[in-house]
């Protein structure tokens, strides 16, 4: 991990260090949203709307119509990027990339600056209305450390979600794509993700985003937002001190935040 990430983003290990991947098979999906509710159930989230990503709804199934009423369905949630821009822009190192795959926000460390929200190429990070912390899918890192599959995966009643070691799941995805005359989405996007989709129709018809293969894709944090926290009480004094300290000891990380025309190696 060190070779790959240096001190650019915090890294960690949950179990055995073997990378894992979630597979979403759009051809099997029936749009029942059992994965969405399972996610709420496992994380003890209130039964807030299932139609929008929020701090209490980490997955949506698109399009936002009633269960089963669309011929095509796509999962919309954290893709657990191999090169997570959310983690790269976090000024306080609140986001960790685990060797097993998950990209996880630590709410105790988060200062609510919102940078990750605008850095995520998939737009799947949201801010908790009450705690003002960033929030998203954890790939059930708590379950993974006990060698269990994510709760959404085990909930799927038609086998449209699968989970396993990266090599195995990637091979499965390719085989399945070939079988149905489709293609794999997520293996190249943003340098590759730990959630793969098997799609058959055009990406647009599923409503999934077109993301280039660039690692750490360019963020969309606006200049006012970047400067705002220097002058406001938001993020707290402690947050500012932590951000400043980390900027001094890891100066290279500032590149990702403040140098949008950078060339990533």
């Amino acid at each position, binding site marked *: 991990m060190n070779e790959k990430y240096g001190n650019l983003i915090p890294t960690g290990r949950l179990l055995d260090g073997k990378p894992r991947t979630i597979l979403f098979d759009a051809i099997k999906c029936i749009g*029942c949203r*059992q994965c969405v*509710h399972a996610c709420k159930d496992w994380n003890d989230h209130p039964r807030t709307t*299932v*139609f929008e990503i929020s701090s209490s709804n980490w997955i949506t199934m698109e399009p936002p119509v009633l*269960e*089963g009423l669309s011929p095509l369905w796509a999962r919309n949630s954290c893709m657990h990027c191999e090169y997570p821009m959310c983690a790269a822009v976090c000024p306080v190192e609140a986001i960790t990339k685990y060797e097993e795959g998950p990209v996880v926000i630590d709410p105790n460390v988060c200062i609510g600056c919102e940078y990750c929200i605008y850095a995520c190429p998939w737009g799947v990070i949201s801010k908790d209305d009450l705690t003002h912390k960033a929030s998203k899918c954890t790939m059930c890192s708590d379950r993974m450390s006990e060698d269990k599959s994510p709760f959404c995966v085990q*909930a799927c*009643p038609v086998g449209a979600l699968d989970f396993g070691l990266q090599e195995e799941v990637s091979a499965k995805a390719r085989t399945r794509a070939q079988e149905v005359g489709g293609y794999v989405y997520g293996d190249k996007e943003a340098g590759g993700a730990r959630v793969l989709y098997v799609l058959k129709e055009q990406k647009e018809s599923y409503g999934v985003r077109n993301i280039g293969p660039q690692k750490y894709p360019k963020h969309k944090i606006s200049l006012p937002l970047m400067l705002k926290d220097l002058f406001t009480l938001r993020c707290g004094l402690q947050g500012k001190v932590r951000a400043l300290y980390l900027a001094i000891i890891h100066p290279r990380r500032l590149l990702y935040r403040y140098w949008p025309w950078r060339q990533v190696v």
Partner: protein
Amino acid sequence: MGRILRVDLNSGSMKDENLPEEPMLRKFIGGQALATYILLRELPLDAKPYGPENKVVMMTGPITGTGFTPGGTKVTAVYLSPLTNHTLGRGAASGFWAVYLKAAGYDGIIVEGAAPKPTYLYINEGRAELRDASSAWGKGATETEDRLRAEVGIKDAKVMCIGPAGENLVHAAMLCNDYNHNAAHSGGAVFGSKKLKAIVVHGTARPPLYDRARLIEAGLRWRKTLMVRHEAEKRTAGHAVDLGAAPNFNFRSTVIEESHIEGFDKNRVTLRPCFQCQRLCPWDVELKSGNHSGTVGHFNAGSEWLDTFYNLGVRGNDALYLAQRINDLGIECSHFSCGVGVAFEAWEKGLLNAEKTGGLKFEWGNVEVIDRLLDMAARREGYWGNLLAEGPVEVAEAIGGDAPKWVVHTKKGTPALHDWRPHFGQMIREIVASGGMKPQGGGSVNPPPDLKYREKWGPLDRNDPAGWSWSNALSEQYRQFCGLIGGCWFAQMHMKPDGLNSMIDSFNATTGWNFDIDQALEAGHRSAMLQSIFGTQRGWIAEHDWKDVGARFLEPVPDGKHKGFTIAKWLPELVYEYHRLMGRHEKTGRPFMDTLKKLGLEEFQEWAQLD
């Protein structure tokens, strides 16, 4: 949660009441038993089904909406049945509605009085209000759902409503929710009499759990027992295939032919499961051939709506088209089918002609006429519409001659429309049930594996009545229990090892009570007893079970692989035995004092059989 909403439609007032204290909750748990207990305590003996004094009590159970078990989706509504005027009416719904009722903060609702104008009840995050329903009045169930959801402006809101049938007091009108779901057996008519078009619920609360980790473990065990349904099943003739008989031409033939499923293979079928249940019963269909190609239908499992139109000579996609129509209008399909079946048979046999039918040709398989009759029945339009809304017994009496012998009914209610006649357990279940409600039970050839430690019998023989009454009584108890805890018995896999134990463990983990399987069955028994006490109070006696049954329902199977079979030759002994085994007098149906004491129902001793 822990609250019941009491709505008085006369004055428009509402109040929150607490659930009973724990000792009473342990006794009745929730669902049908708790709801019936409340109704028994509150409903005057001289109440009329359509009078404002009738009440609808709706209750969920502890596992409803936890999300960690299959089938945790149920709400049960009870009321005085307008089909029989003297027995308990009961309808149960699955889908999502009950889950969101709990999320809105309530375990149940008591509806009393009658509103002066069309009204709907809107409950959002623990706040309830009555709203004007005139924009949805007269509309079908699907459109009502869409309209009211749009009106409250919340996409996640869930709607339970009535169609035109409920508004016009078709005796067997249904409550419809979440597109695919119907709580049949007259609840819709009682809603209609109260001018209550719908109840819209929305909320974000989670039900309380005693031991979450244990519930997850028990829920996964339960899930492992499920027999998962598949898309291919939805392209068959449904439950008729399992039963080995389809009702054809008013129960005069049972043979299933290729034509029954013509066009099914080309349709677009989508499974549309209930909240967090992996059994995958409900489904949608888009017809791809026939005169109504493009129609979208929303169905649950059971497939009685399919047999409904097979019984009228309709085949293939036309049956699916009509099934969607009847669900949308909100008529219980068997009520319609048994009524029209008699009328069509009368036409065939020359008792009716175009003069008497207003020019309509009552011919088997005439889709246009059936389509027209559906509208007429749902709106009580004209002579035939009004008669069909009343019920099959009234249709037969109006036709006269031999027609009353051709009716299928039990105590003027109609069985879920399948041909149950070849099956022993199911037939006992159908005839001993409270009229005007879906019966529970059915029995099995062998005892459930989880009960084998105490049930040493089986396999039962179709040609020998011994054991069948007990098999039904036993299954009634575990099925009742499943409903009380808020579970759906389509997800109850009693014939699989761990099928009952995993369900009881899920209940224990949710509540923190440690029920064993015997206590669970006792709770189910108690629920069945409350149901019969309700009937006893209003004039039901056990003898009605076998005397007040349509003759056609007891005729031998006319053809097919079960040809000649009937349980009629063992009546009334089978019924007597069933009541004795349940602790009731075989002829009056009143509970013995011992039974009441055993079940802790001494407060109803005035209704006991004393000698």
